[in-house]
């Protein structure tokens, strides 16, 4: 068991592509860290540098108390689970699990013990004699996990291990991976582009964008306090509503649109307002409110998903798209006008130049 730390790690590929642009991260022993970001943001590259499959252009990777930059993958005391499982097609499941241990010179009896133990935990004991091609996707996934477990490594590295499974199996394996990781207590670094997977698995999330860390934090922290518009729109589904606002006299107004009943002492003359769909509530009739924000929107489409409905609407003349989450039983006419409001503490503000979050402590009062 060991922690992992990355110190200003960079990767520039031979062609000149700068895939990772200086990432620093400290992973504690036993922690489950998820690297999340859109496709091409450098997640795999970063993971593969930790694994030793990619050379490190600059910076330092430490596993335990060893700098591993120059150490072969096999000697880094890590195990990796690949998206396409990468099982050895000509070997039985047993040998797939045992191969790495044999190469390490571990005794036959100990190999057997570890393989059977892993097979028991992963419920693949019945398939030990089969070849991978005779297994379903989910079973192959388990074998791939088994190959990692038997190594009893300091850290597990996962590169989108669930992407090739169907939706139902993905949810099930997600839960199992989480349970397994908690019971083994092995430090894990997990890569995914799926924000839901990231949220549900992680002790801490690392949101990557264009080879740089956008935010690090617990899933709830990242969700509630996104550090930038990028994080705000990437984490959470449906995505946070983002709209431009401008200073208007004492208060603020939506750019080219309705007023907001907000006053605040921000220095900016314009900003971006973020509102999660679930933080907008629909106001019935003329009910008086003392929320700082109230908008009239025109319903354009409704997506009922059962327990709730996502109401797509446009904001007055601005044409700004907005999504509101409503209880599932409520009925909406397309074309009808809704009044929605949000509480003060649910408003997010971002700089319109950098996209970074603007701290609001004490700045905002209802008009």
């Amino acid at each position, binding site marked *: 068991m060991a922690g992992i730390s990355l110190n200003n790690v960079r990767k520039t590929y031979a062609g000149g592509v700068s895939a990772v642009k200086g990432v620093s991260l400290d992973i504690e022993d036993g922690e489950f860290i998820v690297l999340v970001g859109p496709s091409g943001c450098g997640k795999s590259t970063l993971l593969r540098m930790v*694994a*030793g*499959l990619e050379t490190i252009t600059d910076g330092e990777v430490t596993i335990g108390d060893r700098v591993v930059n120059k150490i*072969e*993958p*096999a000697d880094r005391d*890590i*195990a*990796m689970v*690949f*998206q*396409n499982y*990468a*099982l*050895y*097609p*000509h070997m039985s499941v047993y040998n797939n699990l045992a*191969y*790495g241990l044999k*190469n*390490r010179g571990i005794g036959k009896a100990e190999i057997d013990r570890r393989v059977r133990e892993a097979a028991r935990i992963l419920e693949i004991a019945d398939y030990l004699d089969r070849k991978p*091609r005779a297994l379903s996707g989910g079973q192959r996934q388990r074998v791939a996990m088994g*190959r990692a477990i038997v190594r009893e490594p300091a850290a597990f590295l996962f590169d989108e291990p669930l992407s090739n499974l169907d939706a139902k199996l993905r949810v099930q394996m997600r839960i199992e991976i989480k349970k397994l990781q908690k019971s083994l207590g092995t430090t894990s670094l997990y890569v995914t582009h799926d924000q839901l997977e990231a949220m549900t698995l992680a002790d801490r999330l690392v949101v990557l964008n264009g080879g740089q860390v956008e935010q690090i934090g617990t899933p709830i922290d990242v969700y509630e306090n996104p550090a930038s518009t990028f994080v705000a729109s990437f984490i959470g589904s449906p995505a946070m509503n983002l709209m431009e606002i401008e200073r208007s006299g004492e208060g603020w107004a939506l750019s080219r649109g309705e007023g907001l009943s907000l006053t605040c002492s921000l220095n900016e003359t314009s900003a971006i307002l973020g509102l999660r769909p679930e933080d907008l509530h629909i106001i019935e009739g003329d009910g008086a409110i003392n929320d700082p924000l109230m908008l009239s929107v025109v319903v354009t489409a409704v997506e009922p998903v059962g327990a709730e409905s996502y109401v797509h609407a446009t904001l007055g003349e601005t044409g700004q798209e907005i999504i509101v989450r409503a209880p599932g039983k409520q009925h909406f006419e397309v074309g009808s006008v809704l009044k929605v409001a949000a509480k003060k503490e649910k408003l997010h503000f971002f700089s319109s130049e950098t996209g970074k979050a603007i701290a609001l402590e004490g700045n905002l009062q209802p008009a």
Partner: protein
Amino acid sequence: MKREHIFDHLILIIGALFMIVPVVVAFMTSTHDAVSIYKNGLQLTWGGHFEETYRAVLTEAGGFTKSVTGLTMLQNSLILGLGFAIGKIVISMLAAYAIVYFRFPLGTFFFWIIFSTLLLPLEVRILPSYEIVQGLGMMNSYSGLIVPLIASATGTFYFRQFFKSVPDELVEAARIDGAGPVKFFIDILVPLSKTMIAAIFIIMFVYGWNQYLWPTLITTDETFFTLVRGMKQILQVWIGAQIPDTNQAMALAVLAMLPPVIIVVVFQSWFVKGLVESEK
């Protein structure tokens, strides 16, 4: 649908007959004695002299020096065929392994150099090759027969294409599992390639077995004669008798055809299996 089926079968049957009938004729004729063949021509029926004819061609010493039997030639042919096939597979797998998995300067360039030797078959470079073998004193030896032909652009090309289709993750998983280059090659790449190896083995064995020109140049000592090269040679001497030993000639021809046929039949199931189910 039905008519097309019959038509397909008709074509296949005609093709099969075209290939098989001469072989059957050769075999049947070889079981008659020389006199009756001389009188009645080629035969389509069983002649009853199978054992004595075949024992004669396999064990009676023939040739100029009376030092070579059919069995020695069969053995020489086997050595050439196997040496040729195995040598080519080993060399071309190693070459392809280097080209696909190791970064070395001008790797692609060397691959195309190897590939371009396809434009230079043995017949084109036969004199220089002969010169070299002679200069090295390798005439009349198995190594002289085999080694100069062992490099294979075709084999290298096929293995290269195959190795390129092996997913990178497999290499990476093996690296993490502590398999170095040699272990990876032996434990993973070779087993994965076995259907490819079988296919190339068939092609190369038959090719080596059927070599005529090269053994003719390299072997003057009759004890190194292969079947294909020696058949005519040792029969010419037998023809010293009044009636040509057509039965023995046919028997040798059948013997020369047999091993390639066996190899193809034995490996065929593997070959088809390999083509149908992909292991990657």
